[in-house]
């Protein structure tokens, strides 16, 4: 067995994350954004409506994940895996958009969320 080789410093600064980490980040921000938007639209007073919307969103996310996982994995394997520079740019773009969405969610939440919680 050949000894493991480690890349030089230039390659050592590469910064790859799993795409699912980015998607989980989006999910967490979207939960907060959804809560604030539903409150803004006046749904937060009705627990049944909130529960129904929450269930529908969870179902939609599960369906979307089931449908999209295959094509996305294929795209990663066939395109991004052989073009790491493109994948790096796409990841930075996705993370940049996530940061902007996060800031917008914070500002929006401060503007619309009521005192002492939303219940």
């Amino acid at each position, binding site marked *: 067995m050949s*000894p*493991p080789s*480690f890349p*030089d*410093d230039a390659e*050592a*600064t*590469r*910064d*790859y*994350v799993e795409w699912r*980490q*980015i998607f*989980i*980040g989006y999910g*967490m*921000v979207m*939960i*907060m*954004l959804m*809560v*604030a938007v539903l409150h803004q639209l006046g749904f937060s007073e009705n627990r049944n409506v909130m529960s129904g919307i929450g269930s529908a969103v969870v179902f939609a996310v599960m369906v979307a994940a089931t449908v999209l996982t295959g094509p996305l994995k294929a795209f990663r394997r066939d395109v991004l895996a052989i073009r790491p520079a493109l994948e790096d740019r796409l*990841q*930075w773009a996705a*993370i940049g958009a*996530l*940061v902007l*969405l*996060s800031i917008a*969610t*914070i500002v929006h*939440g*401060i503007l619309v*969320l*009521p*005192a*002492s*919680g*939303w219940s």
Partner: protein
Amino acid sequence: MTMDQSSLAFRAYGSRKQALIAIAALAPMLTGMGWTLVVNSTYPLGSRLFFAAILGLFALVLVGPVHRLVTRGPLLEVSEDGFRWRGWSAETIGWDAVKRWKPITYFGIRYVTIWLHEPHRHRATTAARWTQGVNGWFGHGDISITGGGLNRSSDEVVRAFKQYAPKAPLGR
């Protein structure tokens, strides 16, 4: 002792992508709850302070990502001289100070955990000093290193120790 600066050393840097994802994902939840329960709240002062303390504890999760964003240079270096883990201290710990090490998996997270001959001679200068005792209860050694938050995977960290540590690991 200084760390070998040759390209033969294994170096892992903080992952800025992971740090930004963690901060961006958690910040809206923490600020939203902080706003409604503490700042813009009608709860009595005692309750607001209680909520603030709880949220403060959760906010500690962000210390690591923020630290990785601002830290320059490698967080982990492993070479023939020893290893330097900035999550523990800025000191390079020579292999002669290491009693044994082994890779372990805990809650699905892989670590390299290290037992030292004289732990009191290599004290942590970071927040790791507060968790050292607790880690011992879970079967960890004096110092535990994971690939989480680094730009290298846990497997690569384990491979680096296998390559440079003079003794074979004790097994999984």
